[in-house]
């Protein structure tokens, strides 16, 4: 350190300029270090710390500008304003980054805070330790340079670097606690974000003041602290009080602040022991690895890590073990309209596990089934102490029981009438099997979700159902024929009888008529028998031969006549 100050023993301006550049270089180094640590470990906390160092860099830049202005352009009005512009820009940057940090801290995603592996934890720890050392050295260097050349700006900057030291120390402590499983990264990040916000606010305030009063406290040769205190008295603005609160107060009551910090860290540490038990849970509390008590829902306290810990067991909710399928709770796509047998394999929120689903039945057929077993945790302590993964044990057991049970049923009965029976038997078997294992769970109910023949034979099964319909169709058609034919036949029979009646009537009347006519005729025939015989004979002959072709042939003619319809053909022999 003395080596540095000896070299700077030229003119005050050159020395201050050199010191300013050194400060900026160190700040850049710190930012790079912390930023790369944040990149390696993925921790938002380290990123916040890097941003805090960025604030320091901003202040160092402002100091550099102020030195330049003071010595080189003391008479140039416009050049003086450059200092204020730089401060303003840096302050905006810092405020923005602090808001970004706030949103990250208050957001719901905690992944960026807890370091994932031991290696990254160690790297971060070593990196921050290095940064702490560098900050301590640069702090002392700045203050010495400031004292030597009576530059209050440098003294103030040196003091401010203390705050960087404190934040980095906080990060260091957090990392140490993280090693023991106590995670206060989020709170530390919040604190650092507040610090970044304060620096930003401070710079903004100074920049604004610079434009108003045409001169800054940073550059002015007077003492900074009385100036700040004077300012408190002058302005009662609450905002400004909050902005300038830390620095003035920290410098005034240094011991108290350190004590309060320790209290805060201790309080935060003890606070990690509080935990909440939800209505469906039971909290199993342990101290030095031994189960101490079981806690019902509500707020409870356990000895903080690494001395004690708590395991929350879901005792209220009915847990379920699935066989043959899994439930995709986060399924977002459209579900099929109905879970047909084919769809349960390919679509929807219940993906199949074919290895579990397909089983051999008693008649050596294959069946595809989804089964569900509900269980609840009866004894949380036994559950915690005797199994690492009770769910997996139950799944295997359930798979065994399902396959063993299906192995002595017939396929057709499994599909239809024996479902209830299988369900009851499975439940009985599971209860018995679980009783043998000391895992603290009890079976609530077993459900046969769905069973169907393997997808490869489903078309044939459906075809059988269609054939059954076809059978009914054939029978119905025959019945239709029956229903069509019989009434017709009955009608026909009726018609035949009626016809017979007609015949009777006709015959009767004809006979009676003819008889009457005969009687009438014969009464007059007898007296004039010869007359009537001749008359009737001729009348009849005449009538019969009337209008008909008549051929008269000689008696000795040796001819034969062939008559074929109307056409006559004669042939002479």
């Amino acid at each position, binding site marked *: 350190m003395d080596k540095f100050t000896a070299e700077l023993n030229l003119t005050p301006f050159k020395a201050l300029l050199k010191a300013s550049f050194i400060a900026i270089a160190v700040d850049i180094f710190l930012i790079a270090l912390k930023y790369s640590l944040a990149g390696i470990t993925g921790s938002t906390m380290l990123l916040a710390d890097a941003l805090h160092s960025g604030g320091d860099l901003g202040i160092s830049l402002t100091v550099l500008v102020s030195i330049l202005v003071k010595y080189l352009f003391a008479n140039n009005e416009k050049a003086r304003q450059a200092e204020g512009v730089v401060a303003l820009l840096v302050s905006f940057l810092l405020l923005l980054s602090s808001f970004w940090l706030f949103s990250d801290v208050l957001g719901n995603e905690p992944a960026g805070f807890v370091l994932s592996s031991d290696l990254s934890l160690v790297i971060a720890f070593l990196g921050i330790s290095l940064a702490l050392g560098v900050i301590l050295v640069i702090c002392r260097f700045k203050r010495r340079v400031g004292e030597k050349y009576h530059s209050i700006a440098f003294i103030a900057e040196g003091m401010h670097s203390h705050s960087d030291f404190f934040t980095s120390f906080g990060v260091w402590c957090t990392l140490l606690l993280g090693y023991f499983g106590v995670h206060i990264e989020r709170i530390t990040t919040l604190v650092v974000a507040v610090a970044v916000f304060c620096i930003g606010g401070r710079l903004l305030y100074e920049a604004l003041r610079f434009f108003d009063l045409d001169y800054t406290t940073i550059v002015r040769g007077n003492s900074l602290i009385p100036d700040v205190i004077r300012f408190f008295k002058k302005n009662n603005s609450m905002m400004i009080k909050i902005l300038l609160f830390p620095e003035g107060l920290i410098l005034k009551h240094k011991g108290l602040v350190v004590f309060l910090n320790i209290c805060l860290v201790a309080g935060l540490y003890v606070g990690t022991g509080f935990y909440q038990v939800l209505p469906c849970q039971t909290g199993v509390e342990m101290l*030095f690895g031994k189960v101490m008590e079981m806690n019902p829902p509500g707020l409870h306290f356990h000895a903080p890590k690494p001395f004690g810990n708590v395991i929350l067991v879901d005792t209220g909710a009915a847990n379920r073990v699935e066989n043959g399928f899994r439930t995709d709770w986060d399924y977002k796509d459209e579900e099929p309209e109905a879970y047909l047998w084919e769809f349960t394999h390919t679509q929807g929120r219940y993906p199949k596990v074919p290895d579990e689903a397909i089983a051999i039945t008693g008649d050596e057929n294959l069946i595809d089934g989804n089964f569900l077993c509900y269980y609840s945790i009866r004894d949380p302590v036994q559950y915690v102490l005797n199994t690492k993964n009770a769910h997996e044990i139950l799944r295997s057991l359930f798979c065994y029981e399902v396959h063993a049970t299906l192995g002595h049923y017939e396929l057709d009965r499994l599909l239809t009438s024996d479902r209830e029976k299988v369900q009851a038997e499975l439940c009985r078997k599971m209860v018995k099997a679980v009783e043998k294992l000391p895992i603290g769970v009890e079976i609530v109910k077993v459900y046969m979700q769905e069973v169907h023949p393997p997808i490869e034979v489903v078309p044939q099964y459906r075809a059988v159902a269609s054939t059954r319909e076809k059978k009914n169709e054939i029978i119905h058609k025959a019945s239709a024929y029956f229903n069509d034919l019989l009434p017709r036949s009955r009608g026909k029979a009726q018609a035949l009888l009626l016809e017979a009646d007609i015949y009777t009537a006709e015959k009767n009347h004809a006979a009676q008529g003819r008889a009457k006519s*005969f009687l009438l005729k014969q009464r007059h025939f007898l007296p004039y028998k010869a007359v009537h015989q001749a008359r009737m004979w001729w009348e009849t*002959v005449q009538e019969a031969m009337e209008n008909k072709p008549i051929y008269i042939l000689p008696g000795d003619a040796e001819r034969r006549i062939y008559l074929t319809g109307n056409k006559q053909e004669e042939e002479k022999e």
Partner: protein
Amino acid sequence: MRKGYICFAVIAVVLLLFYAMCTSVVYQWEMAVLMSFGKPLRFINKPGIYFKFPRPFHRMAKFDGRLIMLQPKAAEFLTADKKNLILESAICYKIADPVLFMKTVRDKKGLEVRITDLVSSHTGLLLGLRELSEIVNVDPGKVKLKSMNVELTRLMRRDVKGFGIEIKQVFIKRIMLPYENRLAVYGRMNAERERIAKKYLAEGEEKALVIRAEADRASRIIIAKAKSRAAVIKGQADAKAMKIYGKTYRKNLEFYRYLRALEAYENMFNQDSVIILDDKSPILKTLFSGKHK
């Protein structure tokens, strides 16, 4: 004041380091072996905080004493009646004696390899003594799966005696046919369905034929009955007519014969008849001579 804080900080850091390096918490579900350069010094099976020298001198090897379900990959075996089956077994065990465990199988991975070997060999052995019908059967009394599991558990317990673990249960979790056999079963199932479908169709045809025949029978019987009745009715009508004719014509048989002959003449000729007469025909003779007879 400043010194006080520094002292406080130093003590805090030292305590933390001491806690981190020289103590070890054994949870209630754990067992631990305190070791010094690989030599077991003390076996711990009670929960609590234990002191030890830092890392290179002492090491606390911890073992999870909770139940673990080991599920080796499924493997194919033959039954006594030469049928292929894929069996997947599951072994529920826990570590009981960590020192023995470390001595014989070294770590969990070593144990799992050995258990997998053993269970595969025993499963093959036991399945080779049983027929498929003893694994799956419609008659629950004939299924020997449970006794096979008991036997398997017994054999496994016997063979892992030196491993420092306690086997709770071993069972055949899953039984499946190899892919080709599964296809064959699907083929058979399809054929069976076809048989049922054919049966349904034939049954339908059977019923339909009966119904049609019944319809025909009923219809024909109705008509036959009607015809017979009609015949009777017609017969009665004829009889009645005959009676009337008989009564009437009996009164003058000669006139009836004459009338009937004339009637027959009348009806014998129709419009298309051609009449061929001999020139010596009595009709012509009578016509031409003008004398009747």
